[in-house]
């Protein structure tokens, strides 16, 4: 992984490292040359690692007290909230942690979109990231089912019923998923098992995500390739470690505010009513982080096509490295793309908003327009923009970000060779 050979100083260290090169790995991670101009949008990778670890640790403790049974799940959650020592704290961290996780992942994804981090040679990092995101959604959805409240039950019913849209085998698949003829105890126990499994799959993919990142190295706000190590880079430790740590602490303050002062604001009140198969809630809404996709699902009148549209909305992201035809990575040097980027951000926020509203009248119309625009952005605007757009001149290195244009080119090249 590392470009230069590393030899531990101590004899024992050398003996160990020859057999298992953990010290080489540790050295690689500390020395890892990182662009020195990374801004705070780049701190969310570290924040996301923190979120994953927090969810796993709190989840393990919750699993020690939770009972995955349709008759006892709701009671066991109340038992955790009342009688388990600091059970309320652990559960509120876990429940709000899911929202914080998604908040961070959306910022992380939109950072990639702005700075073109998904482009060559980082396509594999990006695709692994999309798989992680899909698994996160699955884990979050199944986790929301576990307290066995009204939204758990009816959310599970709505989402699993989507599979019935598949022609011919749909109904059979749904019965197979449920383990019966409706959402019931077998559904709950398998969701619990999968909810326990998926975070460890995510953990494994995170290792691959970081490994794939460390091959080409980080993208940066200027979006140009840089020499590593050089004047443009700093070693990961201590520079990036302390900066990520600072950003993480800021994030934790927001996190703590939710956990301690408004722990239920992101949840739905109906989930404090025990699941009742005979009473359907007035509005069935998913958690906020799934709302944009829920809006896309509901904006298509046909059930099967709605499901296809929703899945495509996520999977289209995996094709992004090839849909975006521009050679320039960073939106800083793409004046037109920059505008379309912010329109896309607004579009997704609007989809999230109408996803929370009843699918009727004006809301439905807005949802349809926003859905159409979402696909238009990826399928038409991005590919065309790469050919039509007049990009701004990019600098040759991070240390000389002002230089550019033909007159300065020779000077800049000269300077760069001097720097190295």
């Amino acid at each position, binding site marked *: 992984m590392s470009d230069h050979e590393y030899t531990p100083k101590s004899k024992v260290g050398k003996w160990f490292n020859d057999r298992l090169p953990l010290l080489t790995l540790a050295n690689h991670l500390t020395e890892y040359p990182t662009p*020195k*101009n990374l*801004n*705070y*949008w780049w701190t969310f990778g570290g924040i996301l690692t923190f979120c994953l670890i927090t969810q796993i640790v709190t989840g393990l403790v919750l699993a020690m007290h939770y009972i995955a049974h349709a008759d006892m799940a709701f*009671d066991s959650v*109340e038992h955790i*909230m*009342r009688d388990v020592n600091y059970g*309320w*704290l652990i559960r*509120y961290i876990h429940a709000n942690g899911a929202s914080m996780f998604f*908040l961070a992942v*959306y*910022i992380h994804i939109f950072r990639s979109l702005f700075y073109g981090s998904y482009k060559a040679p980082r396509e594999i990092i990006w695709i692994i990231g999309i798989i992680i995101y899909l698994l996160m959604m699955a884990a979050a959805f199944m986790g929301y089912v576990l307290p066995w409240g009204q939204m758990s039950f009816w959310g599970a019913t709505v989402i699993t019923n989507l599979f019935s849209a598949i022609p011919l085998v749909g109904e059979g698949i749904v019965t197979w998923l449920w383990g019966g003829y409706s959402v019931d105890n077998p559904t709950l126990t398998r969701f619990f098992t999968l909810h326990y499994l998926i975070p460890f799959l995510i953990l494994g993919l995170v290792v691959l995500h970081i490994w794939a990142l460390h091959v080409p190295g980080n993208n940066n706000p200027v979006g140009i390739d840089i020499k590593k190590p050089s004047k443009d880079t*700093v070693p990961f430790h*201590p*520079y990036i470690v*302390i*900066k990520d*740590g*600072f*950003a993480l*602490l*800021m994030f*934790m*303050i*927001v996190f*703590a*505010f939710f*956990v*301690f*002062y408004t*722990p*239920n*604001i*992101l949840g739905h*009140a*109906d989930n*404090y*009513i025990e699941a009742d198969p005979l009473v359907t809630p*007035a509005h069935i*809404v998913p958690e*906020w982080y799934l*709302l944009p996709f829920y809006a896309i699902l509901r904006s298509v009148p046909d059930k099967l096509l709605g499901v296809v549209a929703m899945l495509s909305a996520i999977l289209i992201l995996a094709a992004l490295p090839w849909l975006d035809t521009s050679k320039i990575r960073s939106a800083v040097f793409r004046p037109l793309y920059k505008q379309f980027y912010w329109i896309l951000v607004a579009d997704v*926020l609007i989809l*999230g*908003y109408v996803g*929370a*509203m009843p699918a009727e009248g004006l809301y439905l119309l807005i949802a349809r327009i926003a859905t159409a625009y979402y696909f238009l952005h990826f399928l038409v605007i991005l590919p065309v923009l790469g050919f039509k757009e007049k990009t701004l001149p990019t600098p040759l290195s991070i240390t000389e970000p002002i230089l550019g244009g033909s007159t300065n080119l020779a000077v800049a090249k000269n300077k760069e060779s001097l720097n190295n």
Partner: protein
Amino acid sequence: MKNFFRVLILSIFFIGFQFNTHAAEKVEYLKTDWSFKGLFGKFDRGSLQRGYQVYTEVCSSCHSMKYLSYRNLAEKGGPEFTELQAKAIAASFEVTDGPNADGDMFTRPGKLSDKFVMPYENVKAAQAANGGAYPPDMSVLVKARGGGVDYIYSLLQGYEDPPVGVTLDDGVYYNKYMYGNKIKMANQLSDDLVEYADGTRATVEQMSKDVTTFLMWAAEPHLESRHRMGFKAIVYLIILTVLVYFSMKRIWSRIETKV
């Protein structure tokens, strides 16, 4: 740094949706000062004890509280009855226990470890006695309703004669805060319905406030320690953040780039 604040603003915007969705269905609820709101919010002990009295004398004939035990009444952060008082309260209830050595169920006075006695044997019995409507368990009721405490507080005072043109079936009442305005629970509170031991005048408003406070505690029994711990945790995080910020500035001063 400037960018980071943009992150924060974006986050708040994102989360703002959730507030919006709740706000959409809301009617203007009656407002009162809740002592348990805010960074240092605590329960008013007197109000909790009076609220318990209203619950036992009025609500508990129909509404269960299955997640509460009599021992909770003496725990810190709750009504904080003395242990003797809580024991006496528990003993005033008949609890079905058993089976004994002969295989028979028997009744005995309640103990601290007993759960609150349920008004009905089962859901069906509760429905049969209430015209088909099941009086919901009140243990987490405050958290199970969109408007929370304000909703419950308003609902208890929201009984009115139906407006012209609205006809009500037998056993259905008009309440301006109820979803759809039709409720199967009759108005339960009237001035001086209970006699408070501490001499507080039992107006409808006072009883509504007390019983709602009690329900809030029942739903969030650890609210006080949550607020206390939250304040300490956030102060600790802020101090640590400031320290880390200056360390970061120091470390990055070796590089020309600003952080």
